[in-house]
């Protein structure tokens, strides 16, 4: 970006801001967003992530079949036919990376979504009602946190993967869905489930702590004095105020979950070959590290790039949202 374009971007941001103020009022979210607009690293990260998503979820559909083997053409070099060459089974690497990204990113997003939904509701209720309810709910969280996460996921995965094969077969038989697609879907569902089931624990604690302090704030008292019911106060007045930290935490958990997916797949517990995910690709690539390092390096680059982008994005969001305290 040249200095000139930066300048215009800056003033345009300014103009946008004053315009908004005059017309609709500027919410704290809007302010944070504008503040983040000044954080170049965060914006670049956002673009990297968006482009990755577009490639994986849009462009991938026009690529070659990632499962189609061609044993006569193993370890091919990049060419017009195979942009990044082929792997040990003669499958198109480029298309495998994109399809793998679909699963990895989806795991990250869906597991985070599940974790946020459960975590926010659970934490908010626990903090808001307090007393015995709070004690019971938080001890439950403590208990769950004390169970080794990886072990539970391994057990769940073992139990559920059998289920996934039978379900997949059943769906194909009764509803006539595309077999590959169904296999892919049911293969990763247990992973979503297992990660989401445990991912909400920390978030519940964060939200609970937030709610504990928020419920003593004067605007809650004011809302009570206006005759609002407790449930309405919780969902309308308190939870929106916890969303700042939640969003930051969620953005930072997405790469965490992507990492978990990779770890589990690498250990052979997550996505199974021939399905593709970044974890699988790294696992397969590692086997040919000496002879064909590009099989490890190329998926690794996109994988790291995405993780970096998400982490920087989370940091940027935190910086942008943290100023909130001084604004109210």
């Amino acid at each position, binding site marked *: 970006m040249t200095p000139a374009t930066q300048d215009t971007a800056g003033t345009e941001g300014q103009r946008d801001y004053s315009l908004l*103020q*005059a*017309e*609709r*009022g*500027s*919410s*704290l*979210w809007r302010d944070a967003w504008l503040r983040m607009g000044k954080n170049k690293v965060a914006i670049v990260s956002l673009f990297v992530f968006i482009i990755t998503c577009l490639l994986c979820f849009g462009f991938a559909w026009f690529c070659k079949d990632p499962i189609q083997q061609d044993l006569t053409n193993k370890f091919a070099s990049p060419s017009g036919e195979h942009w990044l060459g082929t792997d040990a089974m003669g499958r198109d690497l480029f298309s495998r990376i994109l399809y793998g990204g679909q699963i990895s990113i989806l795991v990250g997003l869906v597991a985070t979504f599940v974790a946020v939904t459960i975590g926010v509701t659970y934490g908010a209720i626990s903090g808001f009602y307090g007393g015995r309810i709070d004690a019971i709910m938080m001890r439950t969280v403590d208990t769950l946190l004390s169970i080794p996460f990886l072990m539970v996921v391994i057990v769940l995965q073992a139990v559920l993967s059998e289920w996934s094969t039978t379900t997949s077969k059943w769906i194909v038989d009764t509803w006539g869905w595309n077999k590959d697609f169904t296999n892919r879907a049911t293969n990763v569902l247990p992973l979503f489930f297992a990660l989401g089931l445990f991912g909400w624990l920390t978030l519940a604690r964060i939200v609970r702590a937030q709610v504990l302090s928020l419920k003593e*704030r*004067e*605007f809650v*008292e*004011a*809302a*009570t*004095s*206006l*005759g*609002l*019911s407790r449930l309405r106060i919780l969902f*309308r*007045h308190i939870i*929106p*105020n916890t*969303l700042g930290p939640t969003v930051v935490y969620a953005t930072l958990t997405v790469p965490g979950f992507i990492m978990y997916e990779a770890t589990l797949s690498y250990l052979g517990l997550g996505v199974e070959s021939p399905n593709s995910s970044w974890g699988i690709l790294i696992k397969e690539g590692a086997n040919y590290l000496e002879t064909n390092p590009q099989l490890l390096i190329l998926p690794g680059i996109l994988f790291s790039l995405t993780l970096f982008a998400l982490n920087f994005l989370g940091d940027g969001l935190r910086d942008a949202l943290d100023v*909130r305290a001084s*604004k*109210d």
Partner: protein
Amino acid sequence: MPLLEVTDLKTHFHTRNGIVRAVDGVSFSLEKGQTVGIVGESGSGKSVTCYSMLGLVPMPPGKIEAGSAIFDSIDLLSCGEKVLRQVRGKRISMIFQDPMTSLNPYLRIATQITEPLCLHMGMGKKTALGHAIRALGEVGIPEPEKRIQMYPHEFSGGMRQRVMIAMALITKPEILIADEPTTALDVTVQKQILDLIKDRQQELGTAVIFITHDLAVISEVCDEINVMYAGRIVERAGANELFSNPRHAYTRALLKSIPAMHAKGEQLYTIPGLPPDVSQPINGCAFHPRNELGERSKCLTDKRPKLKDTGAGHWVQDCPGCLA
């Protein structure tokens, strides 16, 4: 029959350091359209008195030990959450000390101000918005139709307090409780807000309970003044009567310590000592240890002085050491 009659209200807090008797037997009443002031220093139980009536005291640790607050034949202290919710914000509303924190920073003013209308009046969003815009105009907010779409942080302190007043009065309540509404504002804005409350009160016929520690403010707005000390009312009189003829030693000390009463350069008068520790039961006159203007030796120490009518609606705690 008075609009609101509070009798022998006792609100205690059960804390680790013992039972804090924040409000210890307070009685007063409020007529329709009247403005009653409650004045006292920090921790004297002014706010807790009003919080108790609206069920805003956190329980636990708070507990209403005794008393009744009869409003339109409903006892606010014992009627339960559901009935209370019908009263709050509709028939009795409240404005708070700090307008900077009593609005939700994440919601538009429009959302917050229409909430009581939708809730209590069963209005649709559109009608409510129209009402809200008019209400904002009435409390002196310029361009209300634009400002209503903004967020609290885009308003100044005085403007936010105006929003709070508009919000509290939007359902035309019978009673408005103003809990130190001007404390957090600067002096020029204080006057505007006081005038605004008075104007709106006259227009709507609302009765106001005005809590403050600022005697200048209270003399300006109130018909009747209750002076509170250590959770009890020590003196009650009409505003003029109280200022011209204070009877209780505490009231006299309070009036004497107003800076404007002193000549320039003269040392300001302060009441010696500290407010009593209300976590210990006080048997006699609560003001006894700090009583300097009356005769300390004559203060009751074994039994609690009762409020006594000295004529013309002037009530004062019957403690021989404090009376004058």
